[in-house]
């Protein structure tokens, strides 16, 4: 266990000291701070737009760290052979995978946490200084919940990145496939809704069956997306939330299992 934590710590340190990481953090920080001003420019409910921009910024930040940074760091490890001095020690390959996962997860959670604090401060400021007809209540608790589920979603995506990195050696390939999985996963619920609506009546049954298969196979990321609940203060369904949590954890574990299985047999040349 301690060995896994060591690898996690080193992964965290390596990631946080990458200049790209700092750059993205600053960019998202500026975006969040500017979200209120951007929202003011646009026409519509200013607080709603501020929250939209802020939460989308957090999602983007998470995506970058979880997908790009994870595939980049692992590919770097394999490419530069820095992994040699790790895997040649008395540790099992699965400990390496788990350690990498934990390190990348902490890195992502840290980044999103920083962003979340900036978001809360910005939102609070614009909420207090808003000059509108009737100032709505902001569901702070639900925002916290959305933050937690966002982190879970990112951990799932990190597992996706690790899964692809376990058998390709190109960071670009791993990243591209992970991005594809993300895009499919983010749209599964939308496609389902479209197929069940009037528009979906004209779709051929073959495509519908294919979609059913896809719905089973790919991760349904909308389950972990609580943006609408937080922004519009929708009622919470504890049962659904609990199941979504379980789903996220199970899918992540499954991906890591596959990754370690593949990585056990991988030749490090």
């Amino acid at each position: 266990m301690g060995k896994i934590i060591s690898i996690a710590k080193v992964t965290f340190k390596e990631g946080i000291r990458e200049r790209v990481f700092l750059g993205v953090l600053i960019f998202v920080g500026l975006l969040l701070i500017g979200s209120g001003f951007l929202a003011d420019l646009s026409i519509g409910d200013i607080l709603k737009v501020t929250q939209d921009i802020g939460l989308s910024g957090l999602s983007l930040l998470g995506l970058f760290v979880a997908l790009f940074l994870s595939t980049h760091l692992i590919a770097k490890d394999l490419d530069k052979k820095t992994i040699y001095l790790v895997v040649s020690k008395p540790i099992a390959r699965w400990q390496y995978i788990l350690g990498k996962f934990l390190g990348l997860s902490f890195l992502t959670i840290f980044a999103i946490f920083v962003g979340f604090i900036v978001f809360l401060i910005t939102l609070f400021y614009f909420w207090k200084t808003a000059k509108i007809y009737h100032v709505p209540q902001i569901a702070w608790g639900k925002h916290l919940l959305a933050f937690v589920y966002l982190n879970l979603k990112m951990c799932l995506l990190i597992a996706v990145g690790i899964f692809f990195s376990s058998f390709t050696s190109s960071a670009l390939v791993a990243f591209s496939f992970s991005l594809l999985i993300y895009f499919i996963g983010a749209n599964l619920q939308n496609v389902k809704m479209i197929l069940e609506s009037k528009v979906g009546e004209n779709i051929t049954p073959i495509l519908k069956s294919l979609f059913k298969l896809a719905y089973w196979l790919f991760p349904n990321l909308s389950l972990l997306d609580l943006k609408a609940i937080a922004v519009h203060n929708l009622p919470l369904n504890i049962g659904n939330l609990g199941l979504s949590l379980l789903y996220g954890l199970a899918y992540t574990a499954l991906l890591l299992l596959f990754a370690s299985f593949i990585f056990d047999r991988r030749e490090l040349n």
Partner: protein
Amino acid sequence: MSAISLKEIYKTYKKGLRQRILAVKNLSFAVEQGEIFGFVGPNGAGKSTTIKILMGLIFADRGEARLFDLPCSHPKARAKVGFVPEQPALYDHLTGAEFLHFAGELYGLSKKNFMEQALKLLEKVGLKEAMNLKLRHYSKGMQQRLVIAQALITNPELIIMDEPLSGLDPIGRMEIMDLIKSLKEEGKTIFFSSHILHDVETVCDRVALIVRGELKFLGKPDNIEETFREEIQKWAKS
């Protein structure tokens, strides 16, 4: 119990869909505890491949590879082994001390044992001043010395080194030779590879010659030169 034991090892690389390269063919030999063993052969002979199989980085197609009588695929086999790979590849953003700490943790060393050991080692390889410097600022020589330090952190019984002398200036070569000799005096086993015959002749107790994946000579270095010349000529002609 031998420190290293190889029995009928076969390894084939697949290049693309059709091409197959036989890297190691029916390789069998053992390295006993307490000896300095040299593994020599021309470039591409299969030396690195064999070492990678021993360290669990790649897997043999056939045969048995063991370290201290444990299969090489098992993590425990490497508990008493220090490894110095061919080119130092270190985590850029860590400092020397951090990396050494990391290596110690991977061996399962507790913090108490570690701090003193680490400092002593850093002094021994001459990196004490640079220990809080990030590895990206280390020169190649400094990196090489750190890799050796991390191999010795657990006071291992066996040290495996892949081409430790390549790319070094005469002073560097001398330092490595002295290190190897002093390690033997501490009762350790050293196994290292080289493509220069002279290197293994001078310091090794026993030597193995590998050409095109096959073992051509195994024994004391005094008798090796002739065989070496023959095999090299055969190899150069083809």
